[in-house]
């Protein structure tokens, strides 16, 4: 690998590692499942690297990456979305535009989650982590927690509502201090 190429690669990685969570969250808001988002993100990363030459140094990497991700999502909805329960393209486009505009606030929410996540009890945290791990099997996780599958989803629902409430509260407090 030449030195230039190496530097170039370093720049890319630096930018990418910084903005990856935002791009991932952006994609997640547009597709039905986390696994779909993972698939799309892999494709996006390859395009980003291929096109990194065209990216102006000092430009807004996050905006550029989300732009490319948006294309990939729409292509995915067109190709693979047919046999899946997905939202209408018009709705997805609306959400894409609005959520990009809203990204600073959404980013704060993601950051606030780290604090809120620490506030819940260890057993609940473990259970949530298990349910969210990529190969997490909901059936097994539910059984391990002594709940039915439907009961487990209800529990997940309540936990998320609670976390969201905590996030809103945390950010409101931050804004007022």
């Amino acid at each position: 690998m030449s030195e230039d190429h190496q530097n170039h690669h370093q720049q890319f990685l630096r930018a990418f590692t910084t903005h990856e969570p935002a791009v991932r969250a952006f994609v997640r808001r547009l597709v039905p499942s986390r696994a779909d988002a993972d698939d799309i993100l892999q494709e996006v990363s390859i395009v980003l690297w291929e096109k990194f030459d065209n990216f102006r140094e000092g430009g807004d990497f996050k905006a550029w990456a989300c732009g490319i991700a948006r294309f990939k999502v729409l292509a995915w909805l067109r190709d693979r979305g047919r046999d899946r329960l997905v939202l209408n393209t018009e709705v997805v486009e609306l959400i894409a535009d609005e959520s990009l505009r809203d990204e600073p606030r959404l980013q704060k929410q993601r950051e606030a989650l780290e604090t809120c996540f620490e506030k819940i009890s260890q057993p609940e945290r473990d259970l949530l982590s298990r349910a969210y791990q990529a190969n997490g099997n909901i059936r097994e996780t539910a059984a391990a927690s002594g709940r039915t599958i439907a009961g487990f989803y209800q529990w997940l629902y309540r936990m998320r509502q609670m976390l969201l409430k905590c996030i809103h509260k945390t950010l409101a407090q931050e804004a007022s201090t």
Partner: protein
Amino acid sequence: MNSNNDFEQLIQRYMDGQAKSAEVEQLNEQLAGDHEARKKFCEQLNLDSALAAIAAGDVPENLSPAELKPAFQEQGRRSSAIWILSLVASFFLLISIASWWKPVARPLATVTSAAGIEEISRGSLLFKQRVKINKGFLEIVSVTGAKIAIEAPAEFWFESAQRLHMKYGRMAADIPDTAKGFTVVTPEGEAVDLGTKFGVDVPSQGDAEIHVFQGEVIAQSSDGGKRKSLKDGEAFLLQSGAGSSREFRSSAFIRPGEVASLHAALEVGQQERSEAAKENLKNDPALITLLDFESEETLPMGTYRMGQGRWPGSRAPEFVNVGDHMKIDVGGKREWSELTLAAWVRLDQLGEPYQSLLHTDGWGEQDGQVHWMVTQESTMRLALYGNKLAPHSTSQHGFPDSLQPVLPEQGRWVHLAVVYHSAQRTVRFYFNGEFDNKEKQQLAHPARLGPAQIGNWNLHDRKLSGRMDELLILGRIMNDDEIHNLFEAGTPYR
């Protein structure tokens, strides 16, 4: 249940893949016509993504060591497997970058060398399980090609081939092109590699430190600390929400490559050999002291931490800051016409100020007071108060100095020895058992010991940046063969 709740349930059913076709249709309608609904929807899915990110870093509790089965044993298969992996990784750079997103049940790393650890052996595959080691050394290669050495006590796990979590312990990494971006996650923040050799020290209490041996690393303290770029020879203390520069310590870390050599020495019974040699020395009638720092009850007073010594699970005092020291009081008030000093050390940083190996408390009250140190020029020095160098001496600074610098192999354990003979007026220096230099004295008083410090002297103007394992003080001279044997019996390398 009100309609608000219904809507939120609907979002979550969609998000969890539970929604039926009619429900998705309903969701579509609500989202199409209502900005507030879309806002709520975005928040829920945003949370989902952030929760997944947190969960990825929060892995289930320990698998038992029995589940770490060696997958292959022979050299040939091991190296070819790694060769293929690194070949694939280098051809498909991006595939390797992309691979840290989709954790599947495949190994993330392979143990290439283990020294002094019973549960884990060469060839063990590491998945996402937590690994806890109480003693010994491990060397690991991630599937992306990152070489990592870890020293006990440590607890760690791979989140992916490119993300290593260190709960506590010490690791050093050697990152090839194929693994650029390799990240070490600590409780206080992260170190992101940009193509380097670097080390991370995560004490079980206190903040983590990043040390860059070569290249560049981005340090990112948790809780919104600023990102900081670190280059060759720089070190940084990760603190929640902040961080600060640290003095660079290179030898604090067992480096990739060293573990195999430590392992080979253990295999041929080097630790037992060292123990036997130690027992022999204890019976030497001229023995003044032999400190091995193993027993808690007999540890000298002072300010220092304890780290691992040359052997798995053995202990060695570690000195970090100027002023860190250990107090000893040996040799009484008598005069020693012959004296041998020897120690195993692992030094981090040379130069200013002097590194104190052994400084008796005074200087000037009595002739013969002993100061043994490493100078700014990295040479070893034995200074006795009131002594004079012979004319035409090679030493430049008025005291007997070694010819070679102390660290021919920086970042490893080295054996230092000096032999003093007042009647013959000679000082002889040895590195790793090899004779280095003989200095003649014009005036040579018998040596005096008594209260002394390791790592410091009176006024916080000395230090010892590193570890010391075994200090031998003998009231007689040792000849070249004896020093050589002392080294051979005590070396942790093969």
